[in-house]
């Protein structure tokens, strides 16, 4: 089994420039900038079938293809790495940022080359202090080695790279909100169109890609699209960093072929449930994905299969809910998070999420009624896709609507008993 993104990562250590080069690092940049055109790089990435690993799962090559490439394109163009990993239950990018920062820098250089970018940013969340230090050091090493700056590897192409650390707020991970944050504004999402590819940071063409997505690029350039497709065990290409948290024996993160089953990840890699606990539900890819249950354990964890089962692969980091954890309390925790992190820009999200949170708190405390369930169901419609600027509220509704579907009995019990049956 190949693990291109993580095979050189040793827990607790970080690869220096020299160590990274010894593993074949920066060969892809040399190959691309000297022997391939930006269009060639775009084509190979498109052919590889790489999909964005940040949660949305959009084709990376396709995303890039909307950037104006002719001579009339406005400059500077920007390439931004979204390292604002803040989806609850998600801890995969941290491994890549801390373990092999140069792999990310190389991926960013390749993406920047593919869209002829002039300036790049790593948008890193504040809490990743170790990653901040390591990324800063690595960016400096890359400048000193001539992979960044003016006239990269003698080709005449210039690329600047900056590290930007945020000051909190989940919404900064939404790509247009991230752009506003980088411009020094409140991180409210922007209305689309125009899309960032045409009018992004400071109104210039911009691409925002996730850390893991960018880390795939050196390997695709080195080994080709066909190789990348062959890494998976499904129709989707490549490997995926899968994570498991909750009451499992060995919580952690592993790079596995895309399409590995949920059962294999939870039972083999995470060691199954802690003794005495049973699996009740799983959020397959972070807080804003629909619940799946035990009956779904054999589905393949890829974009297509998880969607077919009624959820989303999201970030691929699973949160396991055990049978001793109250589903109403669990969903209340999620909605508290989403209500708090709503940027307040559009009404359904700003007003609806706190309402949902209050209803759930009432249910959890035993003061709920049957009408509350109808109200919650109504919200899953009103806050669903198409009513808001960004995906925060629709994402928040995913675990709620599926909890109402799979754990309805638990909601009813709270109403009938006037208390939480898990703590009461």
């Amino acid at each position: 089994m190949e693990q291109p993104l993580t095979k050189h990562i040793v827990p607790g250590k970080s690869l220096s420039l020299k160590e990274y080069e010894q593993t074949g690092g920066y060969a892809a940049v040399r190959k691309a900038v000297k022997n391939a055109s930006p269009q060639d790089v775009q084509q190979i990435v498109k052919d590889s079938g790489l999909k964005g690993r940040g949660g949305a799962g959009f084709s990376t090559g396709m995303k890039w293809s909307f950037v104006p490439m002719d001579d009339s394109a406005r400059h500077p163009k920007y390439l931004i790495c979204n390292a604002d990993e803040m989806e609850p239950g998600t801890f995969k990018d941290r491994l890549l940022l801390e373990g092999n920062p140069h792999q990310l820098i190389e991926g960013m250089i390749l993406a920047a080359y593919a869209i002829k970018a002039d300036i790049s940013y790593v948008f890193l969340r504040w809490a990743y202090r170790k990653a901040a230090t390591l990324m800063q050091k690595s960016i400096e090493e890359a400048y000193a080695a001539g992979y960044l700056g003016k006239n990269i590897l003698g080709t005449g192409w210039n690329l600047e790279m900056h590290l930007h650390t945020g000051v909190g707020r989940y919404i900064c991970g939404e790509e247009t909100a991230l752009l506003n944050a980088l411009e020094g504004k409140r991180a409210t999402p922007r209305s689309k169109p125009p899309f960032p590819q045409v009018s992004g940071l400071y109104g210039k063409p911009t691409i925002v890609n996730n850390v893991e997505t960018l880390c795939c690029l050196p390997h695709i350039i080195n080994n080709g699209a066909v190789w990348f497709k062959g890494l998976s065990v499904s129709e989707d290409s490549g490997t995926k960093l899968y994570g498991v948290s909750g009451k499992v024996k060995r919580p952690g993160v592993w790079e596995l072929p895309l399409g590995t089953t949920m059962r294999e990840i939870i039972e083999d890699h995470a060691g199954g449930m802690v003794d005495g606990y049973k699996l009740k539900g799983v959020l397959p890819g972070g807080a804003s994905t629909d619940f799946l249950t035990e009956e779904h354990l054999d589905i393949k964890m890829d974009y297509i299969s998880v969607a077919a089962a009624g959820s989303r692969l999201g970030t691929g980091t699973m949160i396991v809910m055990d049978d001793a954890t109250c589903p109403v309390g669990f969903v209340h925790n999620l909605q508290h998070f989403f209500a708090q992190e709503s940027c307040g820009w559009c009404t359904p999200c700003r007003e609806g999420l706190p309402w949902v949170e209050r209803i759930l708190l009432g249910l959890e405390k035993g003061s709920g009624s049957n009408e509350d369930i109808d109200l919650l169901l109504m919200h899953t419609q009103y806050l669903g896709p198409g009513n808001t600027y960004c995906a925060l509220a629709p994402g928040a509704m995913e675990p709620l609507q599926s909890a109402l579907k799979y754990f309805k009995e638990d909601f009813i019990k709270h109403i009938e008993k006037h208390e939480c049956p898990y703590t009461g």
Partner: protein
Amino acid sequence: MHETKYITGKKQADHLKEMDIIREHIAHNAPLSEKEKHEIDHEVSLVPFKKAAVIEALKIVQKYRRWVSDESVEAVAQYLEMSAAEVDSVATFYNLIYRKPVGKHVILLCDSISCYVMGYGKIYQALQKQLNVQFGQTTKDNVFTLLPNVCLGCCDHAPAMMIDEDLYEDVKEDQLLEILKKYSQ
């Protein structure tokens, strides 16, 4: 095309190190110091127009003053040629810009889903008991401010918290006393 200046490696490393260790204190209502101005100027040099550096400016001010007072908002606004309301709208948006005084050390306890499942509630209870504060409050001796924080991105080691720049994973109630002691001196 705006000019982006690259500072040399050494300088940047020094700057980052400084960010981490600086505890030199400037009064919350003092005018911007030369040092603060110098650092804000540097950030302004990296962006196409002054206003775009406002978040960085607020970070710099907070680094020296621990929090951002009304006077600091006013000072930053004047320096960057913005209205105070505009600066404040940014300052109040981001949860890690503190618009109220905080203690010498800030405890960020993760209250998101994986830590919820793994029992952050017990850690919160223990912290409340030991420090005699709730979320959003500062201890009487001004040493600790306790704040909830969203997912810290180490869910395989839940429950987790940060104190200043230090991350604590797999936190157990009986370790808290010892952890807090390190910061109490």
